[in-house]
Every structure is written in C-alpha cells, then in structure tokens.
C-alpha cells in the first residue's frame, strides 16, 4: 500500500516539475513583445482571423464536392505585400500534404500568385525563396497547409521583417540549431520508450500515440480557453495517465496471464491503431496550431536567427532532460530503474519492487512523451498522425543508435538523429529527411548493433 502511495507521489512530483518547467514560456512571451517591432500576438491574430474567414467557404466546397464531380478546377492563390507595397518574386512550392512537390509559383508584379492543383485535397504551400530584404512573418513556419475543395482558396502566408538567412554556412548553422531543437524533443519522447523496453523487454509501438495524446489534449484545452502553458500541463497529465492506464490496465494483467512478448508486441500495434484513429475521429484530419506562440518574430542570437519560442523550447527540453538524467543517476527510484533494466531477476531478488519501478517508468515516460508532443505541436502544428511518422520512427532510430534499453543512450542517439534529420536538408530534399535518419539506423545495425552506449553482449 505504501509503495503505491509513494509511486503516486513520485508521479505527481514529476508532473509538478514539468509544469514548472512549462511556465517558462510565459516569461519569455513578454520579452519578444518588447523586442520585436511587430507584436507577435497581433500577427498571430491576423493570420488566424484570415483562416477563419476562409474555412467555412472551403468546407462548403468540400460538401458540394461529394455530391457533384469536379466540374471546376481547384486553384490556390494569395498576395504578398509588406510595408512597401506588393512584393514581386516570392517563390513558392506547392505539394500534397506530407508528400512531394507538385510545382512552383512566383508572385507577380502586383504581389499575386496562383496555382492550379490536381483536385480537391490537402496541400502544403512552402515559401522556397524570398527576394532580398524580405522575410516571412514567421520564418520557421514557411509552410502553410490548406484544404481545398473545388474553386479558389486563399493561402494565408504573410511577410514581415527580420534577419534573412543566406548562404550555405548560414543555412548549416541554422539547421544545426533546428536539429538540436528537434533532437531534444525526440530525446524527451524516446527516454520513456527506451526505459520501458529496458525494464520490461516490451517495444511499445503505441508510444507515438502517447505523444499525440499529449499534444491533442493540450490543443483541446488550449482551444477551450486555457493558456498554452496550462493547457500543456493538462496534455502532459493526460499522456501520463494514458501511459499509466496502459501499464496497469493492459500490460501488467497480460504479463500476469502469461501472454508472451511477441503477442504483447502485436497488442501494442493494435492499441496504437485504436488510439490513433480515436484521435482522428475527435480531432479531425487537418493539422492545427496552438492559439499561442504559433507565429513569432525572429530575433538574432549570434550567428543564429531564431524565435524566442524556439529558445524556450530548447531551454525546457534541456532542463527536463538534465533533470531526468540526474534523477536516474542519483535518486533511489532512478537507481532501481537502472538495476531492473540491467537484470530484472537480480533486481527483484535483491528486494526491488519491480512492478512499482515499471509503473513509475511508464508514468514518467508517458509524461515526457506528452511534453514532447506539446513542444512539437508548439514548434510545428498538431495533427493526429505525427506520432508514427516521423516521431516513432525517429525515436526507434535514436534508441537503437544509442543502445536499446538505456536512458542516456536514447538521449544521445536522439540528438544525433535530430541533427542528421535537419542537416540533411542543407544538401538533400526536405521530404527525405526522415529517410536519412533511418538510413543511419541501418548503418548502425550493420556496424555496431549494440549502439553507441550499449553493452557488448550477445544480441543475436
């Protein structure tokens, strides 16, 4: 009984720490408003308002589209202007959502552009190149996703001012920062996955869905009026709860029934389908931004141009990861986790309550995954399906690179994976960045299958 109480108290403590860490953006949010000439919040509202105008029309189109066939072409269009008037020569690439390029468009003399897409569907419009001295209002989100039925659909992409990135070296530095940011988020989500494997031997294919639940619950709380900081805490709690329920309600009883690991693996796959498509039913297929911090003015920090939001994300991730590492190294439960991961039977026979340790790993790992999801959603957008591709695949690459079952290995491996993913963009097409990270995975398996930090043991 007291063990349960302590486990509960510990998970509350973990959650509380995360909440405190999440409060940081509130402080940071005040800074850019003063620093940037264009208020981030206003820009945000502008773009959101624009989208709100468009949405009903687009949905009507979709409805019509089901009844009649494509008599009319689907056209995306927009206008670029800044303080000096219309901007000519903005190059755009248009792609199917999550997919590859369909073609390019360039804004004309009056700042206008248009592009005919093959038919109704979801498309991503990316700003490929800007004329000199012109910058997007939010340089990190140079892609806008739109849904189009038939007819014309305006694409909300707004210009602002800021430091432009030019040249390969600058791009390299920029992508290094993005890679660090992305790697830290992958690391945060991968620690739980790796420790669950280390303590139970189970590869949890539903871990990506825990990430999603964190992000999506935070989105609903955010839309209901909660500030993102609080909404994020709600999302983290929901993810921790989901993970706890999966442990107590599914995997512990099944292990007691003597269900084998192979079967449990198939169970995690079934659960990931159930969770993912329940989220689809409630959240819908479109990707959505959070109400705060979606658009921010870029500031210069040394050779990097970045947004305060990203700096805060990096700071939160670093603090949390260092906290987790310290906890695993120093605290009693952390030592117990390492002992169980090392040798379950030996740990059990020396008096460690293995089930309790596993519970803590699930709940803390779930909370970390949820936080990773919220940060990912803040950085990009929230959608129902980013949990599998790219997140779960990159987590796998990270933990195999670092050494399956270790916590520090998962962190280091994920950082490498994040950097590889983002730096590949400097030289190779953007849409293949996940493929490069997974290429690294295959090479590691060939050369050093136990991973960077894994022990040399027989794993064949």
């Amino acid at each position: 009984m007291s063990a349960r109480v302590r486990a509960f108290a510990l998970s509350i403590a973990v959650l509380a720490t995360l909440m405190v860490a999440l409060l940081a953006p509130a402080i940071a949010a005040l800074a850019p408003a003063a620093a940037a000439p264009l208020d981030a919040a206003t820009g945000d509202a502008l773009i959101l308002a624009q989208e709100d105008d468009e949405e009903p029309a687009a949905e009507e189109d979709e409805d019509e589209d089901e009844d009649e066939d494509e008599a009319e072409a689907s056209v995306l269009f927009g206008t670029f202007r800044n303080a000096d008037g219309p901007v000519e020569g903005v190059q755009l690439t248009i792609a199917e959502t999550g997919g590859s390029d369909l073609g390019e468009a360039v804004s004309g003399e009056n700042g206008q552009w248009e592009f005919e897409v093959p038919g109704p569907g979801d498309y991503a419009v990316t700003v490929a190149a800007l004329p000199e001295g012109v910058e997007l209002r939010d340089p990190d989100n140079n892609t806008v996703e739109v849904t189009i039925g038939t007819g014309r659909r305006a694409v909300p992409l707004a210009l602002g001012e800021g430091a432009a990135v030019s040249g390969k070296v600058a791009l390299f530095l920029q992508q290094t920062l993005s890679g660090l940011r992305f790697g830290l988020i992958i690391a945060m989500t991968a620690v739980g996955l790796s420790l669950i494997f280390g303590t139970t031997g189970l590869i949890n294919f539903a871990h990506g869905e825990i990430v999603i639940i964190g992000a999506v619950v935070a989105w609903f709380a955010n839309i209901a009026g909660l500030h993102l900081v609080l909404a994020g805490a709600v999302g983290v709690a929901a993810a921790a709860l989901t993970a706890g329920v999966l442990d107590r309600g599914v995997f512990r009883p099944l292990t007691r029934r003597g269900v084998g690991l192979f079967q449990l693996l198939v169970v995690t796959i079934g659960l990931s389908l159930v969770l993912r498509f329940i989220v689809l039913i409630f959240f819908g297929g479109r990707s959505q931004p959070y109400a705060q911090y979606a658009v921010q003015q870029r500031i210069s920090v040394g050779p990097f141009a970045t947004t305060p939001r990203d700096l805060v994300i990096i700071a939160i991730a670093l603090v949390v990861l260092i906290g987790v590492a310290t906890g695993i190294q120093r605290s009693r439960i952390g030592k117990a986790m390492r002992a169980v991961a090392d040798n379950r039977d030996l740990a059990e026979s020396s008096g460690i309550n293995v089930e309790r340790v596993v519970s803590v790993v699930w709940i803390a790992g779930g909370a970390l995954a949820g936080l990773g999801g919220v940060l990912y959603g803040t950085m990009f957008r929230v959608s129902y399906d980013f949990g599998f591709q790219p997140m779960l695949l990159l987590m796998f690459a990270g933990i195999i690179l670092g050494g399956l079952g270790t916590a520090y290995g998962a962190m280091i491996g994920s950082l490498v994976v994040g950097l590889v993913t983002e730096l590949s963009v400097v030289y190779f097409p953007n849409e293949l960045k996940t493929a490069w990270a997974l290429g690294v995975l295959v090479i590691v398996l060939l050369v050093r299958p136990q991973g960077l930090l894994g022990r040399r043991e027989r794993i064949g």
Partner: protein
Amino acid sequence: MDFEAIFGSALRSALGPQAAVYALLAIGLNVHYGYTGLLNFGQVGFMLVGAYGVGISVATFGLPLWVGVIVGLLAGVVLAIILGAPTLRLRADYFAITTIAVAEVLRLLFRSGPARPITGGPFGLQSVANEFYAINPFTRGIRMGPINYTTQVSWSLVVTWGLVALATLLVALLMRSPWGRVLRAIREDEDAARALGKNVFSYKMQSLVLGGVLGSVGGVMFAIAGSTVNADSFRPQITFYAYAILILGGAATRIGPIVGAIIFWFLFSGVQVSVRQMQGSDLLPGFLSGANAVGASALVLMGAALVLLVVFRPQGIFGDPRELKLDA
C-alpha cells in the same frame, strides 16, 4: 438501414480481388511469423516493390507486362536480402523495428519529388495493366446471388484467387518437407536448431525471401487489379491488416490466411458501409458524423479486434494452441 445492401457490399469485397491480394500478403506473413517466428512488420514494403516493379517497367520504361512481373518478384528477393542481412543475426525486436522503418522509408522515397520521373512521385503511375486486360477471356461479369462483378474485376479476381490457391499449395508442401520442419524448429527453439548443426541465419533468410516474394506477388496483383500504382496505397496499416487476417484465420495453418482474408474484408467493409448508412439516416452521435469517421471507426474496431484476438485466442479460428508458443 438497408441490410441487404450492407450484406451485398460486404460480401462483394470479401470475395473480390482486394481480399485475394491481402490473402497473398498474409500467406507470406504466415511463412515469416507463423512458421519461422520472424516478426516482419514491413510486409507492405514487399508489396510496394512488387507493385512498383510492374508499374515502373510498364508505365515508365514501356516494357511488356511479363517483364514487369519478373522485375517485381526479383525486387522482393533483393529487398528481403537487404533487410535480412543486417538484422536477422540480431534479436527479434531489432528485426521488427527495422522492417517497419524500411517499409515506411520506401514509401517516402517512392512518393518523393526527385523520384517523380521514375515513380510518378505523389501522382503514381497509371495504366500499368492494359496487356493483362487485353487477354481478358470474360465477356460477361461474374454474378452470384446479390453480388456481381464487372468483366475486368472478374478476370483479375479469378487470376488472383488462383494465385492464392497456388501459393497455399506451395507453402503447404514446403512446410511438410524437412525444410519446413527446420523452420518450425527455429521458431520453437532457435538455440536447439543451432545446436543440431542447422545454419539458422540461412534458413531465416530463405524464409524471409519466400514470404517476401509472396508479398510481392500480392503487390503485383494489386497493381494489375487497380491498373495504377500509388505510393500512398502502401501505408504501414496494410501490414497490420495482414497480421489481423493471419491471426484471425490462425497462424501456422494452411487455410488460415484465406479464411482470415475473407472474414476480415467482410467485416471491414461491412462496418464501413454500416457507419456510412447510419450517418445518412442520422443514427449516430455527433462526434461520429464527420467525413473521417467512416474509415476511422472501422480502423478502431480492427485495432481492438487485433488486441482481443491476440490475447484471448492467439491461435485464431483454425490454429492449434500447442503450436505457436512464441516467446522472445
């Protein structure tokens, strides 16, 4: 609610070419998972290379269809060797992760912009099977009670189910042979098989190639039946459908994949049509009325069914519980 329409439509897809393609995938998976104990979560990758083998040969390079079929099958062999070489010596979980990752990477590669001149990128490839339909012997479509198929579908349906029968026979004969007994020995106890002097790695590789090529046959027929190849048809869910089919029918059984495919598609499309009809007559609560709800609710049910089956009846309908005591 029009129950006759639901039943007809469910039965139509349960016996259609798509169910036969999935039966082929599941037969391949049966060789991996059922008989050898390999957790291949990337069966859709084999399907993809089979389909693109046909598509690229015919639509991009203008080669005859039979060349495309051979290219598709060879691509399956090559993929199996590339996948197996680094991972089959490792523990089963490494294999599972690598297969799922490689299959998804293949999809991303084939649908990417730079690959467009060859694979058609996100637009895919069209009219890949004109030669196949040019020799269609059917002048009238098949009619059976409430269901009927067009002449084209009838032709691909007969050929695909014919291949399913051939594949079933082939696997049944192979598994009765000494070769098949070694595979099962590896599944039961890898170390014991090794101790008896069997080259476990080599047997696993042969099993991976055989099952993979059967998956590629499924891909080839998938390309031919639809006459198009599009990367987005090859999402990771396909592999999970194949697992559901295999476990439903019974892994390590001869006709499990066939029965599983028929039941799976009957239920899967039955649920979808029912949800759509209930949406039409406003029988559903608000949250289930969206456009996504039809496919999503069927997938939720499928995921739940997969979990329940694995937990409560891992041997499926026909399986023997004494077989398949898999434990990593």
